[in-house]
């Protein structure tokens, strides 16, 4: 914990977990999609479902999808802004299961060019979040550092391809996870990095045989959505 976690952050209320964390979930989901959001189906689970409206969790997630940050005073007006910006969204409540943190949201996104992404993320306290599922695969990362997610066919060699590219680009790996649906099926690696990965290197990965999808969460600000 840093001093800025104790005196700060500057945020729109009322709750660091239910409001600020929810903005971050929306914001990280949008950046994972890496393009403007055309439509979003948002499902609130647990305490988000029970007290989300009173805490503005619903408006906070939509604000994040529009590219707002936790201190944006337009957060309470995000529904109206979404309408104006042509972001089509729906909100429902559902029980995602006991394995999920009480403050969890599932977001199904479609981007303006048709890209689809499903993100499940939890607000774990003090405005901090954790992305726990991407496209149905269990993952775990904070979204606080550049993160590369490569979905590939479960076969030998893909980890070496990706990590040698990172070595070539002088990107240091902070943490790495490997997950798969089943042997020889869909697999994913989640790599949290200390440096940004150059855009052309991310693009190069998409052309590799056996790579299904490449998602990259950059810490650099994407073009504003609102």
């Amino acid at each position, binding site marked *: *914990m*840093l*001093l*800025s*976690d*104790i*005196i*700060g*952050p*500057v*945020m*729109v*209320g*009322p*709750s*660091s977990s239910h*409001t*600020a964390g929810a903005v971050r979930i929306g914001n990280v989901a949008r950046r994972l999609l890496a393009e403007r959001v055309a439509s979003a189906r948002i499902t*609130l689970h647990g*305490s*988000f*479902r*029970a*007290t*989300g*409206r*009173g*805490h*503005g969790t*619903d*408006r906070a997630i939509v604000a994040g999808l529009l590219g707002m940050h936790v*201190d944006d*005073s337009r*957060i*309470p007006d995000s529904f109206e802004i979404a309408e104006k910006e042509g972001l089509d969204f729906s*909100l*429902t*409540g559902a029980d995602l299961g006991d394995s999920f943190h009480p403050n969890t949201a599932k977001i199904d996104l479609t981007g303006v060019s048709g890209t689809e992404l499903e993100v499940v993320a939890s607000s774990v*306290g*003090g*405005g901090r979040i954790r992305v726990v599922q991407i496209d149905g695969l269990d993952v775990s990362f904070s979204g606080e550092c550049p993160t590369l997610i490569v979905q590939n066919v479960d076969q030998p060699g893909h980890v070496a391809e990706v990590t040698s590219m990172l070595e070539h680009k002088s990107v240091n790996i902070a943490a790495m996870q490997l997950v798969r649906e089943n042997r020889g099926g869909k697999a994913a690696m989640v790599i949290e990095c200390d440096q940004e990965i150059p855009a052309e290197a991310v693009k190069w990965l998409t052309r590799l045989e056996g790579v299904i999808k490449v998602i990259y969460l950059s810490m650099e600000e994407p073009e504003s959505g609102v």
Partner: protein
Amino acid sequence: MYHSLKQITDEATEKGVPFWKPVMLDDCKEQGISEEQSLQYMDGIWQAMKTSETEYDPKLKSRSGLVGTDAAKIHARRERNEMICDDFTSAVIERALKIAESNACMKRIVAAPTAGSCGVVPAVLISAQERWGFDDRAMAEALYTAGGIGEVIACRACLAGAEGGCQAEIGSASAMAAGALAGLLGGSAETICHAAALALKNLLGLACDPVAGLVEVPCVKRNVTGAVNALTSADLALAGIRSRIPPDEVIDAMKAIGRRMDSTLRETGEGGLAATPTGMLIRAHIAGTKGAD
């Protein structure tokens, strides 16, 4: 990161510097930033605290309708010269309500240490600047003092209602404000720690029992209690009164009490005021009309 108030006090005393200084230097080290950058952050926080007060809207209600407009009532009573408390204390009360109500109404605030307790530290410090005319630099230094106390509480105990009950939120905010005020008024590092300890002691055992799980009832009004408690605690410490239990041990007691608190009293909205007949009615009403389904 400091693990005890004694550690900060010893370091400040040894080097002959005020309490806030080691806290700032530690922040520079942790984040790998210069003193100038750290001070710039803290000044930004100070300005945001002041703005969180001035942007109060006296007509605004929270989305549940449970809170809002109360600071305006205190303001009107002050205007009529009817307050029981003196003008300084009354100003603190009004500010604590303004900022805590603004938080509940989705306006911009500074979490210090949490959003639910965001009114305490600025209510005390903005009123102190208004009364004694400290410059903004002195106020940024006071925020380091508050932050140092908060860091130690976070390290030894916790700052979240879900973990330690309201004592961890309003109690910690009150301790941070008391110490910062004592420091501003010339109190030594030891006096600062005792002001914080006296404030926290008074709020030990406070349950986190928000009605319908919202940061509204009783959170908003408890910001007033935390702020006024900080004033009396700073006065005691500055008069030379000491907590018989050493400050770090008071923090440990807070942690121990939090651990023994039933989960219904730790931000679940299932115990205490939330479980009263009226609390349950409000909850049912909100769930019936405003759920996400």
